[in-house]
């Protein structure tokens, strides 16, 4: 027997959560050709079909682009610190893509590695992730190449499978999932099944082998010539987690803010002395692939990429992990 729920009930539930003070986020059509995960204002703000995946990731709601760590005020020669310990509101992310949810365990490891990031953990605890299995994939999706598939439940509290005609099967994986959906679904024999993933585009192990042994290979120079060094790939990637800490606001009363950073920026590894260990874009592109396919797996045992294809989709010049990895394989 399977639990199913209709789209209208689902939207009603979302409206309920919002009314109940929860912060509900999900895909929304912001502009005719732009779908983003966004905090929803109402149930019918939620977009459930007619798009492949949003061009940002649910990382926005757990590891936000700008997070005030603490404030400080300078009085005379003393400084007063203002803690930022306001409680996080309960949060529901609905209709996330499996490749988004699969990245959460990755972030959990990083933010609880040698230092437990309480900001992240507080927010993570208050968040329930409801995934919507993919019903299609495009030329940029490559979840199958990194050991995932359109229906993978990794990282999600509950997963919806579209059954067509506005019906979805709900499978709750965790208590948080059950807490949300228990009593709200009906029994049915119809079970949903995710579509088959895209065929494997590259062999992740071969990529790992290549990057660990071809550090000086001219391939990097040639391939990265057209990379313009912006932060689009890193910032739209569900798994990328690098951040910078900056002071924002006037000197007298300031706030220390954690913001996203990207290894593709030229100033990312700029030293105060003026030296930059990664002076050209080739070294930065190499670093990104090295971190995702070799360094992170070496440390945490899993590939730092869920194959969502956002980097390829958003890159203004058509690069991204997919194009590098495929070229490494066929190069």
């Amino acid at each position, binding site marked *: 027997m399977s639990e199913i729920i209709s789209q209208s009930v689902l939207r009603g539930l979302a409206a309920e959560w919002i009314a109940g003070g929860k912060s509900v986020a999900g895909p929304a059509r912001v502009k005719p050709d732009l779908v983003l995960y966004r905090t929803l204002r109402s149930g019918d703000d939620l977009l459930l079909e007619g798009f492949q995946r949003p061009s940002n990731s649910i990382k926005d709601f757990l590891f936000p682009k700008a997070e005030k760590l603490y404030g400080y005020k*300078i*009085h*005379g*020669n003393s400084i007063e610190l203002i803690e930022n310990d306001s409680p996080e509101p309960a949060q529901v992310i609905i209709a996330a893509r499996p490749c988004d949810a699969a990245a959460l365990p990755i972030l959990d490891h990083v933010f609880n590695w040698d230092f437990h990031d309480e900001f992240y953990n507080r927010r993570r605890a208050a968040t329930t992730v409801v995934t919507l299995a993919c019903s299609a994939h495009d030329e940029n999706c490559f979840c199958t190449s990194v050991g995932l598939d359109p229906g993978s439940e990794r990282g999600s509290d509950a997963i919806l499978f579209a059954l067509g005609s506005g019906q979805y099967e709900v499978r709750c994986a965790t208590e948080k999932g059950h807490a949300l959906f228990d009593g709200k679904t009906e029994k049915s024999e119809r079970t949903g099944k995710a579509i088959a993933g895209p065929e494997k585009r590259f062999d992740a192990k071969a990529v790992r082998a290549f990057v660990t042994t071809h550090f000086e290979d001219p391939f990097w120079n040639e391939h990265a010539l057209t990379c313009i060094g912006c932060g689009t790939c890193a910032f739209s990637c569900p798994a990328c987690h690098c951040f910078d800490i900056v002071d924002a*606001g*006037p*000197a*007298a*009363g300031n706030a220390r803010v954690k913001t996203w950073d990207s290894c593709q920026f030229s100033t990312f590894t700029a030293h105060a002395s*003026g030296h930059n260990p990664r002076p050209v874009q080739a070294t930065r592109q190499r670093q990104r692939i090295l971190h995702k396919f070799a360094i992170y797996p070496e440390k945490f045992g899993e590939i730092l990429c869920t194959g969502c294809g956002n980097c390829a989709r958003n890159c203004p010049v058509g690069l991204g992990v997919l194009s590098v990895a495929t070229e490494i394989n066929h190069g």
Partner: protein
Amino acid sequence: MSRIGVFTCWCGENIARTVDVDEVAKRVAELPGVRCSLNYKYMCSDPGQAIVREKIATEKLDGVVVASCSPHMHLKTFRKAAQAAGLNPYLVEMANIREQCSWVHHDRVQATAKAFEIIRLSVEKARNDAALQPIRVPVTRRALVIGGGVAGIQAALDIADAGHEVVMVEREPSIGGKMAGLSETFPTLDCSQCILTPRMVEVGQHPRIKLYSYSEVEKVEGFVGNFRITIRQKARYVDVSKCTGCGECWIICPLKRNPSEFDYGMGMRPAIYIPFPQAVPARPVIDKSQCAKLIRNGCGLCEKKCKAEAINFKDEDRLVEEAVGAVVVATGYKLYSIAKSQPKATLAGYGEYGYGKYKDVIDSLQFERLVSASGPTGGVLKRPSDGAIPKSVVFISCVGSRDNAKGLPYCSKICCMYTAKHTMLYKHKVHDGQAHVFYMDIRAGGKGYDEFVRRAIEQDGAQYYRGRVSKITQEGGKLVVRGADTLAGMPVTIEADLVVLAAAMRPADGIEELAQKLNIGCDEFGFLLESHPKLRPVETNTAGIFIAGACHSPKDIPEAVAQASAAASKVQVMLAADELTREPEIAAINEQTCAACFTCIRTCPYHAIDRAELRTPRGAFIKNTARVNPGLCMGCGTCVSVCPSKSADLQGFTDQQVYAMVESLA
């Protein structure tokens, strides 16, 4: 910067009456970075300054803010006091709580609150101050004088007598300028050559004056104290060192019939000539457009005749470089050309006066030559057409000047005076002659000037008509001058033998190109732009370049000489020390981050920024950059605000300081 001393002044009761100075001093003490905060009745007084010096020592302050009057009043005073106590003067700031607070806000609570915030602004600025050293620029203690007229001569002599070497560049074969061509000068009627020639000889023989005659300034590089001048010595075809000036060559030269530029076409000169007898240097020049030898390799008599073998037909222009610390521009004037076709689109000519059509219509400088003893007619006034003595001469003033339709709206200042002089000279030479003058207003404001004009009218019988001349036609050998006498209220027709036009004064030819070479401005008529009409009349906006004489605006000889001495004294001030010190509050560019777009170079009003290259110690090219020339930058900061990558900054008003001040208002 964490040890700042704040000294709040009462200014007697000017501040203390409306601002609670104790309250302010107490609150300021808590400001970040403030080490000590006190107030005193008269900060600018000696005891007041003593407090500052003492606190700098005892509290080891590294920044001072004096909250009192406007920085324009006492910033220098307190900076000197701090320097005396060993603190770098540029670490001292002022907070204007008098003119901009206590005097304009009478509500005690508001005034006190505002005073505190004004002081906080200055404290934020002081906290981000950097110690600056005055800019030291080496000075080449030599000066360049462009132009050898009376102004140039006076400036050169003053500077040379003060012990500095002078390089004088004169375009004509001889120095002397326009004054050398005059007959007598108003208002004393003393002979122009008699008073000028001795000064010319003095220049020729002065040990510290290097005279480049028949030469022009080709290029000017460098900046105040360090100019590199390229001078073009035009080919003279006479070796000045060998020539003794005996004159055999210009006597033997067969080609006598070339109109003499010095006589403005009134007389002729040979192909090899000196412009006038008292020329300095008295060395001839061969006019290559007329000399048969140079054109068709004919003649060559002068070469044969010259015992000193000084003639050299192979001579060519030579470029010479001179290093100087200051430049005085004294290029003088020329007359408006009156003829129908004008060199500049904005000017129009007087077709109706027939200048250039009727031979006996001449301009004032041509008349000077005709009545000058060294002139082509030996001082006897013979009219150019047939050499007859003119019995009736009409002088027309304001020809071109004060006439918007002709494009020269300004008054040329000296024409009224020399026209009156001309009527006198004419009367003294032709006793039965009658001079007629058409004028609009008589402008005789100088010392003894008006009396001079009255004498020309009352004693020498010049007939003055207040009115304009409409047309001059030639009928039966007579020039019929049709004008109006507005005082009598009726038209006047005079049959004249000679008509003299008092043409407007315009700057010498090529002034615009010279101004561009020197990076100084000129106005729409070409006169050079002074730095400030009242306060700095002989300086220009480019440090180290001064102007004197008619090139700045129409003026008579006394004024030109006075301006020349003024410019010379300014040069002497500059050349007094080996080094020039300048305020260090100037721009500086971070050459690592400069994107070399050079917007700053386009923007800088002083051309103080140049392109430069960053190279490794071994000379390998790293990147292009813009670089500020500390000698020229005046510290306006315009480059700082147009620099996209924020690489340019202004010392004394750095971004760090300004942003800290704005953010302190949060």
